[in-house]
């Protein structure tokens, strides 16, 4: 069995930065990533798409630089198109599927840099063909240069909604409408969070996006409530309180949440983050989790954006080297300082953004009983409410009652909403309803892939 000092899961900004830092400090590094090329979702396919005029500035510049540094670093074993599906915490053994074959590798330390997923937006009609996450449309632009044809509606809020609108308009999509779901007074609440001066560079970037979107003719409707997608067999229109518009593509976005699937399956301690309305692993200032073998870096440890992710990747790698006695404590502190400064600066605007773009209550708990929550098993909000009244105390019970969370996505899409619905119905905090406890395999694998394990690797 091959052995590495540090195994990094994910080749986004955090994973790439951690791998480069760890290799520089003399650690042997393995990077396992599901995608065919490094970059993560934010810099997805940057090597192929860097020249696309719709994707300018930090995508080709910052993303390109990160990927080049990662590619240039020596002594990194980089496994693209590979999926981690099991971790033996006691033995430090990882099971990884690549090219249809499963294999086991040993690591001294595991760093989860699994990034973020879009927050599911369970509105009526969100399962109709033609309704997608805004991030999904951005991935289509980055990986295939593709844009939606016909009228496009982006509904929701957050920096990505504006960025995507601008990128799609530059790429010739449209006509386009942005339905902003933000609440009245969110701006005043957000201003009280402060951080505007330290975060002024990011703030300027955001304001310039808004201006560019307006120049391209983006129609913006504010304070949209009770959003619904309609159509037979495909989305044809979007309705909200006081309005309706025809569309061929509806792109939903209510921000992103940490991908905590693997960490929760490993039993790492997590806490409910009320400001970001999501679960996040409990980490120390170096990214070390509640388990001595595992650290977390990047958005998977709490949403901070790619610049924060790079900083946390470096810090986690420095900490890994210190734990393996490759770096004296004094040198560790000296080396960490610039990244701690960059992290603080990258996170300065976050409390403002969290408040400005806090999802409306109906985006977290669908008021209409008929709305599907679990896309895999087609379980509705009404069914979950009934289960809660019958005594289900959290998503793990509801899974047994209704199969919500038992489909192929393993609750990645429904887990948070099920917990929020139960919490509301029972009048308890979401933290008390709890989070789904997934189990390995973290992604489905076939019996054939399992059987292809080399005989010596089967414990």
């Amino acid at each position, binding site marked *: 069995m091959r052995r590495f000092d540090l195994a990094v899961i994910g080749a986004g900004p955090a994973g790439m930065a951690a791998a480069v830092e760890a290799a520089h400090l003399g650690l042997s590094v393995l990077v396992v990533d599901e995608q065919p090329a490094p970059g993560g979702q934010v810099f997805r396919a940057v090597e192929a798409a860097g020249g696309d005029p719709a994707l300018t500035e930090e995508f080709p510049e910052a993303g390109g630089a990160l990927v080049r540094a990662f590619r240039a670093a020596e002594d990194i074993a980089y496994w693209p198109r590979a999926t981690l599906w099991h971790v033996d915490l006691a033995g430090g053994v990882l099971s990884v599927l690549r090219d249809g074959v499963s294999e086991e590798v040993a690591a001294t330390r595991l760093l989860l840099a699994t990034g973020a997923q879009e927050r599911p937006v369970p509105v009526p009609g969100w399962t109709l063909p033609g309704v997608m996450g805004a*991030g*999904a449309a951005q*991935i*289509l632009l980055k*990986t*295939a240069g593709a844009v939606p*044809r016909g009228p496009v509606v982006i509904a929701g809020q957050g920096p990505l909604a504006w960025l995507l609108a601008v990128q799609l308009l530059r790429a010739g999509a449209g006509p386009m409408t942005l339905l902003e779901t933000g609440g009245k007074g969110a701006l005043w609440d957000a201003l009280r969070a402060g951080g505007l001066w330290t975060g002024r560079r990011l703030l300027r970037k955001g304001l310039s996006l808004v201006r560019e979107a307006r120049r391209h003719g983006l129609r913006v409707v504010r304070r949209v409530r009770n959003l619904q997608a309609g159509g037979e*067999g495909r989305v044809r229109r979007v309705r909200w309180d006081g309005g309706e518009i025809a569309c061929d593509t509806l792109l939903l976005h209510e921000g992103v949440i940490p991908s905590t699937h693997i960490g929760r399956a490993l039993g790492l301690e997590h806490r409910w983050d009320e400001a970001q309305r999501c679960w996040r692993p409990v980490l120390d200032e170096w990214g070390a989790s509640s388990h001595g073998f595992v650290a977390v870096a990047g958005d998977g440890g709490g949403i901070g954006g790619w610049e924060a992710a790079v900083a946390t990747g470096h810090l986690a790698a420095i900490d890994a080297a210190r734990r393996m006695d490759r770096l004296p404590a004094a040198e560790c502190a000296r080396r960490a300082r610039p990244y701690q400064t960059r992290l603080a600066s990258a996170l300065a605007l976050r409390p403002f953004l969290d408040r400005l773009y806090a999802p409306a209550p109906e985006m977290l708990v669908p008021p209409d009983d008929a709305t599907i929550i679990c896309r895999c098993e087609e379980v509705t909000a009404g069914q979950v409410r009934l289960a809660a009244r019958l005594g289900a105390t959290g998503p793990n019970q509801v899974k047994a009652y209704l199969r919500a969370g038992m489909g*192929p996505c393993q609750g990645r899409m429904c887990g948070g909403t099920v917990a929020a619905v139960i919490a509301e119905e029972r009048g308890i905090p979401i933290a008390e309803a709890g989070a789904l406890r997934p189990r390995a395999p973290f992604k489905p694998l076939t019996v*054939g892939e399992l059987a292809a394990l080399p005989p010596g690797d089967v414990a």
Partner: protein
Amino acid sequence: MFATRPEARPASVEVFVEDRPVMVPEGASAAAAVLLAGIPAIRETPVSGAPRLPYCMMGVCFDCLAEIDGVANRQACMVMVTPGMRIAPQRGARQARPGLAGKGA
């Protein structure tokens, strides 16, 4: 429905979506090929038979499960296109088919 932009990314790989040829850019996923082909659904759900198309495009939602080169239940958004790839919608639960043992079916 989605369309490519040849000026940004030439569509150079031919794949077959429901037996119809579609040209897609290198590096695109099978799920992208389905959206570019414009078929109404990549799968019909096992529970109610409702049509679905890819939703997240990043391996989270599993709404893009399709039959790719004869192997069912594959996340089409996680599989990159290769020349001649055959992508077929999956209707209901995947069927266990004798004779495909060892091919991941």
